[in-house]
């Protein structure tokens, strides 16, 4: 994955420093800003959201991640007030939102299609929400200027949406949603309509804004890169349920289930059976390996004979042309089946004797390689005991 190397990167590293100590979910005394209590939503026979409970804390940049149809958009719309829960309730800042219409909730949404009012200028679009609150005209004007400055659209104040580019329209939609200083800002697939370069820039802009304004953001997306880059915590959803809620790092390196492991990034899944386990380590009999595989960092107790899956990320596998020294744990022999050159990384598909294909990725750390790997080369793949995650679901 390539990232732009420019001044903005430094900004986000500074944010990283602030957010490293930011973990209200770990604090037992913290009161969540938003609480979904056993929320269910049914449309006739179909259950879109299934008995879902979730806490979101103030100042979090939270992401609902999942494929289309998993219920993430329905959940967000229930928070905004466009759908009513069939069961359960939603509490925002201590207030039960049941029966409260969208125009009375301290929540604002940035729509996927932006939904800018075509017959109003940029200024009037942003002022719209403030006019609904009957604020004095001078205050509205000041706030509009503040918002325009925030999203860097001051010269475009009098233009109509049809006279703006896609990126500019998005910023108007953002300014309009932020104008009322809501407690929570909902973003529905905010980066979907943008091209790659703009997407990266906007990701960092959104993160900057969120920290600067001290607001709580809730983003709904199907794009895992988006979620991994921007979020403090991600909730991975599947068929109306939350499968795992954790920080991006935890989601990637400690997936709770096969579904999460396969949804985020690339992963190799090996089927195996527990031979022995104890003290955070275990030995697995893996069909694709001649020798038993040793795994460390095992969290839950495993009984021998239990069928499990071992998840290995491509970058944790080490690829060598010579056989690794003896006593190296977890060695597999195979041939190069396919190569994908991405510039900064190279992906190798290694075919094992059992027929299974392992995906190994390697950073291209030098510009010239003396003996580059080629198709059908005989290679060895090994990994450290801590490199894999044992999945019981």
């Amino acid at each position, binding site marked *: 994955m390539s990232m732009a190397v420019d001044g903005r990167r430094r900004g986000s590293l500074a944010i990283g420093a602030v957010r490293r100590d930011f973990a209200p979910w770990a604090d037992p005394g913290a009161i969540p800003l938003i609480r979904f209590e056993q929320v269910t939503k049914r449309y006739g026979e179909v259950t879109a959201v299934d008995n879902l409970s979730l806490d979101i804390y103030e100042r979090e940049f939270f992401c609902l991640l999942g494929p289309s149809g998993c219920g993430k958009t329905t959940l967000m719309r229930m928070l905004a*007030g*466009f759908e009513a829960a069939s069961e359960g309730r939603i509490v925002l800042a201590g207030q039960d939102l049941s029966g409260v219409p969208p125009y009375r909730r301290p929540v604002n949404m940035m729509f996927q299609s932006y939904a800018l*009012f075509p017959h109003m200028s940029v200024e009037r679009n942003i002022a719209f929400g403030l006019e609904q609150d009957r604020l004095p005209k001078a205050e509205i004007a000041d706030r509009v200027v503040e918002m325009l400055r925030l999203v860097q659209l001051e010269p475009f104040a009098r233009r109509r949406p049809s006279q703006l580019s896609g990126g500019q329209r998005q910023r108007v939609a953002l300014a*309009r*949603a932020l104008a*009322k200083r809501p407690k929570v800002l909902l973003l529905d697939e905010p980066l979907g309509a943008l091209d790659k370069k703009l997407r990266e820039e906007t990701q960092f802009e959104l993160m900057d804004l969120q920290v600067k304004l001290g607001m709580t953001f809730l983003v709904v997306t199907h794009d895992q890169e988006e979620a991994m880059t921007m979020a403090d915590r991600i909730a991975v959803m599947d068929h109306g349920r939350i499968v795992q809620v954790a920080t991006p790092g935890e989601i990637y390196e400690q997936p709770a289930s096969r579904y999460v492991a396969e949804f985020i990034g690339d992963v190799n899944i090996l089927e195996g059976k527990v031979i022995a386990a104890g003290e955070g380590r275990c030995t697995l009999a893996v069909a694709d390996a001649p020798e038993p595989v040793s795994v460390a960092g095992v969290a839950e107790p495993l009984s021998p004979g239990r069928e499990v899956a071992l998840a290995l990320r491509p970058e944790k596998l080490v690829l060598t042309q010579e056989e690794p020294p003896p006593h190296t744990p977890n060695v597999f022999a195979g041939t190069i089946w396919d190569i994908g050159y991405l510039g900064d990384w190279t992906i190798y598909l290694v075919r094992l004797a059992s027929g299974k294909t392992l995906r190994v990725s390697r950073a291209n750390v030098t510009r010239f390689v003396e003996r580059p790997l080629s198709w059908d080369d005989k290679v060895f793949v090994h990994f450290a005991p801590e490199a894999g995650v044992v999945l019981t679901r």
Partner: protein
Amino acid sequence: MDVAPRPPDRGALGRALSALVPAVPFLWLAFFFLVPFAIVFKIALSEPATAQPPYRPVFDLSQGFEGLREAFSQLSFYNFTLLLEDSLYFSSFISSLRIAAVSTVLLLAIGFPIAYAMAKAPERWRPTLLMLVILPFWTSFLIRVYAWIGILKPEGLLSALLINLGLISEPLQIMNTDTAVFIGIVYSYLPFMVLPLYATLEKFDYTLLEAAEDLGCPPWRAFWRITVPLAMPGVLAGCLLCFIPVVGEFVIPDLLGGSETLMIGRTLWSEFFSNRDWPLASAVAVVLLVLLVGPIVAYRDIEARRWEKAK
């Protein structure tokens, strides 16, 4: 903003053929509109006579150029001055405008909810609903107006129904009044109001209403601030499409209206057929056209300017 790519240069023949395309409707309009209009205008400048055709002068090319020049000198604007002097025509015209305006407002009040409901109906129902609106056009307009006579007359269906239900004791006297004319006009012109409105409302992005609600605007206020302004093109189109023909409407006031229902169409008809005063009737027609073309040209001008600004 993207600019449309320029078409490739096709050479002289290509350009000539391209010019032919707009020439076809232009020639059509010239032949079927401008020429008849010129004929009517010429008759308006003539004077009535007991002859066949009932006006003088008649251009006779057999008389040669001299004959034509003589005929031209006999033309005058006398009929137009007559229009200004006699209050009948002015009253008829004002009355027509009044009836057309009231009808248009009624059409809008009835047509907008219908078009709105159609636009919000589930997709699979829309073709059927559209068909139902257009269906009356498949039957004869005249027969449908006659049917209303059968419904509205004192011995007709409406009175019979209301008397049977015990709501009234005496038969209704709606026939031959302005009310009957309004009913007839609204009934006949409703599709002309509903269809342009439906066309505009169907393209409406309802997410805009959600966005308005999200920003603190209750649904009824969002209707006036978002839906109505964006439906304006359809409203204007529908209103013009109804107002202009209704001003000149003849059949409905003739069949359903009373003798006090003055409309310029009837006045023109009686001038033409009863009085056999073709020149005067033609003068009325010419004035009517000019007075109606004014708003249309103004509307087109506004639209064109809006287009330019949007670019």
